[in-house]
């Protein structure tokens, strides 16, 4: 009984999802909406399959940009937090600016990036970093802040060096919080790369979507949206897998979002 009830609950979101798709499909058929207003989901899927190779090529480009930006964000966040930890006054000076930086409209910056940095990988990766860096850095900082100062005192009383405290205490204990931020960044990384491409590119999903839109192919646009969603979810799942592997002590009580 218990078990089957559980399965029922697990299926619930899928049922709602299928329901939504059905309503959409029906709506399109009943009012016979033209393709360029709203294509039926079946049509979107068909388009996704028929243009699979093309989508794949562009997807790889976008994925590459997103992953590069994502990786850079992680590295930068670690560097930042390391220096914040080393020089608390640096933190005092930069932290408020970090928060304020989030109010700068991304799209405007993205436009200026193309003017300043041209067409290569750089501006796209920069957009991804702009989106991904903040949640990672903040969650890492919070994780470090959340470490019990008595724990650090204990290690100090045992004569541990600053580096040892970092590697044995602060870093591992900050991991769960860090992964929470990582999950958020993974959710948005693909989207960020697409925005970067939107501002000008020769390839990638953002480029392709613009092209399709100007060719009045809404079904193709939605097929690309589908890919973006799936890819984002895949990245989130990968982050969760990494968390499962790297934070074994929290396996029982993982917080899902």
């Amino acid at each position: 009984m218990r078990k089957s009830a559980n399965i029922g609950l697990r299926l619930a979101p899928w049922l709602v999802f299928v329901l939504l798709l059905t309503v959409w499909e029906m709506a399109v058929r009943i009012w016979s909406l033209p393709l360029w207003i709203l294509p039926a989901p079946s049509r979107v899927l068909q388009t996704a399959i028929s243009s699979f190779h093309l989508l794949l090529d562009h997807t790889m480009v976008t994925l590459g940009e997103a992953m590069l930006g994502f990786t850079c964000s992680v590295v930068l966040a670690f560097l930042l937090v390391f220096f914040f930890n080393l020089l608390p006054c640096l933190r005092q000076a930069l932290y408020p600016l970090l928060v304020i930086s989030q109010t700068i409209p991304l799209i405007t910056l993205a436009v200026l990036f193309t003017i300043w940095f041209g067409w290569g990988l750089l501006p796209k990766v920069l957009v991804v970093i702009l989106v991904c860096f903040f949640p990672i850095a903040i969650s890492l900082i919070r994780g470090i802040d959340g470490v019990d100062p008595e724990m650090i005192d204990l290690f100090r009383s045992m004569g541990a060096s600053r580096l040892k405290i970092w590697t044995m205490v602060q870093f591992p204990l900050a991991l769960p919080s860090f992964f929470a931020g990582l999950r958020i960044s993974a959710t948005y990384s693909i989207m960020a790369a697409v925005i970067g491409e939107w501002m000008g590119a020769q390839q990638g999903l953002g480029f392709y979507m613009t092209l399709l839109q100007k060719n009045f192919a809404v079904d193709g646009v939605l097929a690309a949206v589908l890919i973006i969603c799936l890819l984002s979810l895949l990245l989130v799942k990968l982050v969760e897998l990494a968390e499962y592997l790297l934070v074994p002590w929290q396996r029982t009580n993982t917080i899902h979002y």
Partner: protein
Amino acid sequence: MELEIQDISKSLDRIYTLDKVSIQVKDQEFVAVLGPSGCGKSTLLNIVSGLIPPDQGRILIGGEDWTGRTGRVSYMQQNDLLLPSRNILDNVIVPLLLKGIKKNRARDVAHSFFADFGLEGFEGYYPDQLSGGMRQRAALLRTYLFASDILLLDEPFVSLDAITRRKMQLWLRDIRINYPSSVLFVTHDIDEALILADRVYVFSARPARVIYQLDVTAIRGDEHSYNSAKLEILNKLM
């Protein structure tokens, strides 16, 4: 090893926390410190361990001046402070690793104590998976492995329920036969102090001053003087 706390004073924001506190712990002696909440007991242990420097006074260990220097004595705080990220065995070997001992060797050394500390079979468990008593024993073993000759214990059993606490007290009393160390033990619990300690110091409310001293060895076994000692201490404290 002998520990001498000489005339330690400490103030924070011009308010005194410790006022000329002197305590002597002889070799292999178990000294308990009783005092009201917030009087400065933990602050004293922080000073003895070298985490914070005193305003005045000295800490002598085996005759040597260790005032304001860490790394000499073992210190166990109020909470078990086990790393949730490591299993029990890897938690316990931390002090050995910090001393530069290789991981495998450290594990062997630590493991030889597991049976005595009632931890056998739980080496691979994470702290969150263990009961409070077991976590305290692990923390105690870690403390012991850092330096076995002087231990500072800050209310190690405060977070346990009454029955588990009693079991742990009896266990600690028994294990000291095989593992004799000099111990400075902070507690609120008069019974605990009288069961475990050779000597008891009672502190006043903040600023902490020694207001009473008792040689427990002299009255042990005598139920009547035990009860009157307990009443005496209770009156000092309340």
